[in-house]
């Protein structure tokens, strides 16, 4: 490991940090022997998959470790002062004035019953004694600085009146109003749409440059690393795997794990040929639409078009990717097609040869969240055989089929009588796929099926979906917000924006020559695109 010589003195230096885990965990230390530093004017990215200890490291610096952890060992030197030895009162005064922090979920980090201005003001009130008029003008100035529109009016807004990106800007304003030397950002853009993420990353970059502060940026996304980092620390299972400048880590990673992490990020190259798939027609959707009517207490009604009339056709052996950001109507489309919600107009017709089979046997869906899509109180075997048994398959036959499917999705059939909490996220998603396949469907709808998974696991599950498609000649409707994932598995893409289908075409055509303005913006926002190109 060659650490580049630092141009500036370090603001925070972490030496041999170890955070012990309570007994009964999968390892002794949540964080084990981690040493790195953040200097003035640089952005250090800590990157790792879930369970790598990256957030624990950030919490240890802030002195905000949950109580289940014992006192950390090692040293955290903030401008020469060891934070692990600091009194709670000293830490309180440092938070905000010396170290600012922003979090992943901007909705839960803000108090819903106070105006956003008052919440930024709280930082000032607890650290300084200033007249109200001056505090107000400083808050407004801070809100202006993070690019919030019309700050004097927005001061009096409540968090729910703001968009996700605006809320994150409010948090940044609160974290930076006292000009701290260090900003800790824990996955600040993970919950945001990709176009918003791009703006927030740019904002953090600009503020860091103009103030010359150090930023410790925690992320799981190599693309974000490429976008924002000066130096990178790679973590795995609580240990530091490798550290170095962003150019070196991305172009010449030394550790095997870093190489795997970078290789697992899907490229934007279309993996499938641009020629249309000529399988038999499986699904024909005609002008399907969903409108919600909201009745107010005074008898007025307001209509919200979640999905404007949309048509599509899907062939056996073909994968269509539906891409779009939150609120684009892509999940509504999936739910209308699978008849989980009733469309307001239009219809989805199954056109395959299995005309005698009931609808639910012909179309199956895999959900996003592997922690919620299996009933925690039923064994995975019970979950898999539920569908076939609903349609009259004998229990013994269904069980035999479930054993085959478990092996097919790469899990030990002996694990059928285990409960979901005993499996990892990726394994649960395999079980969900096995449950869908148990119905022998012609069409599989995958609603953000790999979005909640770490990149390395994501690659494996994508490969599994690809394998089962070939094996059963499935028609797949693949809903995702991630264009890289879509490029890996789809033949055709539909781009949705505000409930409307704005563009469709082969993956290559959409990526190389996007015709709609929104598609261009979406493509342009993919983090790390310049570095990858």
């Amino acid at each position: 490991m060659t650490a580049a010589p630092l141009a500036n003195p370090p603001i925070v230096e972490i030496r041999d940090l170890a955070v012990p885990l309570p007994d009964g965990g999968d390892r002794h230390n949540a964080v084990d022997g981690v040493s790195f530093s953040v200097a003035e004017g640089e952005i250090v990215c800590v990157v790792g998959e879930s369970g790598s200890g990256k957030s624990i490291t950030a919490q240890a610096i802030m002195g905000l470790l949950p109580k289940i952890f014992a006192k950390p060992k090692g040293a955290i030197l903030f401008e020469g002062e060891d934070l692990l030895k600091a009194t709670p009162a000293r830490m309180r005064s440092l938070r905000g004035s010396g170290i600012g922090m922003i979090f992943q979920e901007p909705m839960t980090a803000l108090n819903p019953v106070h105006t956003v201005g008052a919440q930024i003001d709280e930082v000032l009130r607890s650290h300084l004694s200033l007249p109200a008029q001056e505090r107000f003008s400083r808050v407004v100035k801070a809100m202006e600085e993070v690019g919030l529109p019309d700050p004097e009016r927005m001061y009096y807004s409540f968090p729910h009146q703001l968009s996700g990106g605006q809320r994150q800007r409010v948090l940044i304003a609160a974290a930076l109003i006292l000009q701290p030397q260090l900003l800790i950002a824990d996955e600040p853009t993970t919950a945001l749409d990709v176009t918003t993420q791009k703006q927030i990353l740019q904002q953090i970059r600009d503020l860091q440059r103009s103030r010359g502060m150090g930023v410790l940026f925690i992320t799981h996304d190599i693309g974000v690393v490429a976008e924002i980092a000066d130096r990178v620390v790679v973590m795995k299972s609580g240990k530091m795997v490798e550290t170095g400048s962003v150019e070196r880590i991305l172009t010449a990673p030394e550790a095997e794990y870093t190489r795997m992490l970078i290789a697992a990020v899907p490229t934007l190259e279309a993996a499938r040929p641009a020629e249309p798939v000529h399988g038999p027609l499986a699904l024909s959707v005609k002008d399907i639409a969903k409108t919600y009517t909201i009745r107010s207490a005074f008898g007025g009604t307001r209509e919200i078009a979640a999905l404007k009339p949309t048509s599509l056709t899907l062939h056996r052996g073909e994968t269509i990717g539906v891409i779009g950001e939150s609120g684009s109507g892509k999940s509504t489309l999936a739910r209308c097609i699978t008849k989980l919600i009733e469309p307001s107009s239009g219809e989805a017709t199954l056109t395959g040869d299995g005309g005698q089979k009931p609808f639910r046997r012909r179309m199956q869906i895999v959900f996003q969240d592997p922690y919620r899509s299996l009933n925690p109180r039923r064994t995975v075997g019970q979950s898999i055989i539920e569908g076939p048994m609903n349609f009259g398959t004998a229990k013994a036959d269904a069980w035999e089929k479930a054993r085959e499917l478990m092996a097919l999705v790469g899990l030990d059939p002996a694990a059928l009588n285990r409960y979901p909490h005993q499996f990892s996220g990726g394994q649960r998603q395999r079980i969900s796929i096995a449950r869908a396949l148990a119905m022998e469907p012609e069409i599989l709808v995958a609603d953000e099926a790999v979005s909640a998974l770490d990149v390395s696991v994501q690659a494996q599950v994508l490969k599994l979906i690809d394998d089962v498609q070939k094996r059963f000649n499935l028609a797949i409707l693949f809903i995702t917000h991630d264009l890289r994932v879509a490029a890996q598995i789809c033949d055709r893409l539909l781009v949705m924006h505000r409930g409307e289908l704005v563009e469709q075409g082969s993956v290559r055509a959409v990526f190389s020559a996007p015709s709609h303005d929104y598609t261009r913006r979406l493509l342009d926002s993919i983090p790390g695109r310049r570095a990858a190109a």
Partner: protein
Amino acid sequence: MTLLSPAQADEGPRNPLLGLAAQALRHPSVLIGGFIVAAIVIMAAAAPWLGTVDPVRINPAMRLKPPSDPFWFGTDLFGRDIYSRVVYGARSSLMVGVSVAACAIVFGVAIGLVTGYFRGLDVVVMRVMDGLMAIPTFLLAIALVSLTRASVGTVVVALTIPEIPRVVRLVRSVVLTVREESYVEAAISVGTPTPLILLRHILPSTIAPLLVLGTYVCAQAILVEAALSFLGTGLPPEISSWGNMISEGRTFFQVMPRLVFLPSLFLALTVLGINLLGDGLRDTLDPRIAKRM
């Protein structure tokens, strides 16, 4: 292809509910409350073998006697054995408490599951429940007793009706959350019929909060039954019940405080035990239940 084993392979198949139950048994409130409740239940069940005599046999010659050999706690106004009446009184109290809790839960779960799941019904049924909730227990009991006559059944009905809406609200709130879970959607998409979805995928989530609510309903019912009996609108006077004993003893409270003191002590102990048990169960089974109730 190598097959993957579960991430946590060493613990074997284990139902998450069983894990919670094991955890609950280590909670001090559950232990203490459970011990008290178990002791009272054993006392009630084994009443005839605990050195008791017939609790309703009137013996005018032995009125208001101090404690002696056959009458360990002395006798009351009609010469009945106080000790026997206290022991047998546990039977009436527990029977009323458990029956009220059981009836309220059976009706409440049935109504709550259906209203929570079918949105159309929700508006109508919940307004009916609001109406039921507004009925004062005492007035209802007095009305029922004056319409029919004092009996265990009347008391149970009078106490159950106002409790049903509380159970319905709890079950409905659980159903409203669970019905949005992906696993319920997954069950719909594999063609599971709606009644099975309710029983198989939604009902189990209500068990833990219902256990907790059940203990509160039970304790409340025992207290209200005693109060009703004290007012003379509860259990008929010939039944040994702690409320009846307190009521009859109050005239002689100053000369023989034990007439009131002993049944009150057992009443307080029983309610305390059940409440401790409920608090402990709430802490371990469902930390968020306080928000739902």
